[in-house]
């Protein structure tokens, strides 16, 4: 082992001497050229859109900044100022592609605006119509046999009806007078008229304008219920409210 170490050592010394000798010779080489001027700075560019998603018909704000650029264009818009913003309202999703060219090169940036289509025509009656409110709130008035006065247990309905109609002054209505199947056709036509007008009079007394109210008697011609028993007859002895379109 000792003999090998000695061989390595001799080899390294020899090679080192050879390199030293060679280096001394290169001192005669020419001087290096002067350093080149610093290159012009590369342009920078950024573009953004806010919000990044709109519905068709709405608009978004497109904003961009560049530096070191002499020629700035946005595809689809054309040449623009180096810095600026613009309102856009495309009908379809668009990618805004900005190209900034300067002495230092070209820089690109993109921003994407997503356009969603508006929901189909205004959602079918998401809000409650007057007619629905009317049918939910206005209660028919029921009568005793052969009577056309508003009986005590109907006064609550009567007041609630008047209150609703006073709160919805745009609603016009018809009051139908109905009778049960008993008795004369002709007399019931007259009795139905009395009932309809009794309901109308009560509404007018509670402040509802008479001009909003029509009345009609159906006598016993258009019953709600066709059985021959008191439960059914009571259903048919009524002042029935109809929303007037």
């Amino acid at each position, binding site marked *: 082992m000792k003999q090998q170490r000695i061989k390595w050592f001799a080899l390294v010394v020899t090679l080192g001497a050879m390199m030293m000798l060679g280096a001394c010779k290169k001192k005669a080489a020419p001087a290096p050229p002067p350093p080149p001027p610093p290159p012009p700075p590369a342009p920078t560019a950024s573009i953004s859109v806010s919000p990044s998603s709109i519905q068709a018909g709405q608009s978004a704000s497109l904003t961009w900044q560049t530096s070191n650029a002499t020629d700035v264009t946005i595809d689809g818009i054309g040449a623009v100022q180096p810095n600026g913003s613009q309102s856009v309202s495309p009908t379809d999703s668009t990618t805004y592609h900005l190209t900034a060219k300067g002495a230092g090169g070209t820089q690109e940036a993109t921003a994407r605006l997503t356009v969603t289509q508006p929901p189909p025509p205004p959602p079918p009656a998401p809000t409650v119509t007057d007619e629905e409110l009317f049918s939910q709130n206005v209660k028919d008035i029921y009568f005793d046999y*052969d009577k*056309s006065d508003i009986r005590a247990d109907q006064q609550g309905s009567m007041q609630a009806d008047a209150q609703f109609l006073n709160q919805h002054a745009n609603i016009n209505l018809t009051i139908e007078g109905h009778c049960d199947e008993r*008795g*004369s*056709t*002709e*007399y019931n*036509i*007259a*009795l*139905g*008229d*009395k009932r309809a*007008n009794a309901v109308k009079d009560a509404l007018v007394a509670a402040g509802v304008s008479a001009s909003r109210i*029509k*009345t*009609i*008697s159906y006598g016993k*011609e258009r019953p709600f219920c066709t059985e021959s028993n008191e439960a059914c007859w009571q259903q048919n002895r009524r002042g029935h409210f109809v929303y007037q379109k």
Partner: protein
Amino acid sequence: MSYAVSFSAKRMNHPASSARHRRVGRLRARNPAYLFAFLLIVFFLSSLLSAQDWVKTGTSLGVEKVRLAVPDFKASTGDPQNSALLKTFNDTLWNDLDVSGVVELVSKSFYPLQTPGQPPEVNFTAWNAPPPDAGMLAFGNLGVASGRVTVNGWLYDAKNIQSPQVLGKQYSDVATDAAARVIAHRFADEIIFRLGGGIQGIAETSIYFVSDRSGHKEIWAMDYDGANQRQITHLGSIALSPRISPDGSRIAFSGLTKTSWEIMMYSLDINRLVSFPHFGGTNASPAWSADGTKLAFSSSRTGAPEICITDVSGAGFHCLTNSRGPDVGPVWNRKTNAQIAFVSGRTGLPQIYTMEADGTNQQRMTDQGYAVSPNWSPNGQFLTFAWVRKYGPGEPGASDLYLMDIASKQWVQLTHDGGRNDYPAWSPDGRHIVFQSNRSGNLQIWMMLADGSKVQQLTFNGRNSQPNWSWK
């Protein structure tokens, strides 16, 4: 034309009716004065009851009826059309005489084998002795030739062999079923005119009514015997209460528009609606004055249903009542044209009232129950109307038809056969009443003699109501 009220007439030839129908009206005995009056009336009536069953309408109903034999008319030619027309003619003639109320038809089972078709063939002794025991004999012949039908008819006094002929008539028309029917009606009316005290028969009259058989309630018409039912109006909504004018040219009725009930006018001359003003509100139950110049009807134009009047063009609207009703169903006194009967609910349940045609002297005629649909007799002395005498919870009273003598307010019940009976209307001869009843299960038009006998159903299709009889 003469009418005579006969409260002491002979007992009617109506054996089945006596005990069951011996019900005569009374006023309520609420206090001593009423009680005294009531006892007087009972005394008065009981003296009559021994002799009669009914309040007589005085138009030959209730007198001894002549026994009339009517053998089938015979063919006088060899035309093949004869047999069909003979059947129509014989059936129509028999029915007209049977329902007339003025003769008693001798049952065909009593007739001799040989029946006459012309005068020389009459064997008097075969007819004027029992079993037929006929007082009168109507006979004749019918023949078609060259598309025309000729009818010869005779009325013979079977017991006057020397000079038997009371009537001899010849009719000729195109050979149709309808013509055979009309000829039978005319011959029947000739017989009835002579045997019924000179009062014109009703065989050619018409009845107007409401039917729903088209799907809507519309006005319909038919011959008095139920033949030729035909639709008049085509409103497509609801038509009610037809009333034919005295001259037969127009029908007033109440029709439903989109917003109200209006009086409407239909011309039978030009077969369409003619203009009549709309008053708004509820306008119902029109009635013609006897002279045909005015209409009375129920109108809520002034607020509540009152009895109001216009002329026939609809001008001159004014109201006779101011009760805040409901007042409805007016009818004029056909004899005097000076009074109006109507229905009012001014005291609660509807009652019958009368008043002068200017609205004065309003009088209540019924004292209880539910009384509606008054109709004034041609002789001006009676009202017929529908009445549920005892009405209310626990009182399952039926609606029956009644006859009231206006002067005395006495009444008798005319219908006893169940069902709800309403809208009685007089025939022009004062001997018949047409009405609606559901006694057969659904609502139909029926006819009877004014004493409640000879009840006959006239309609069968759909539901039919509110009959009104032509004035002539």
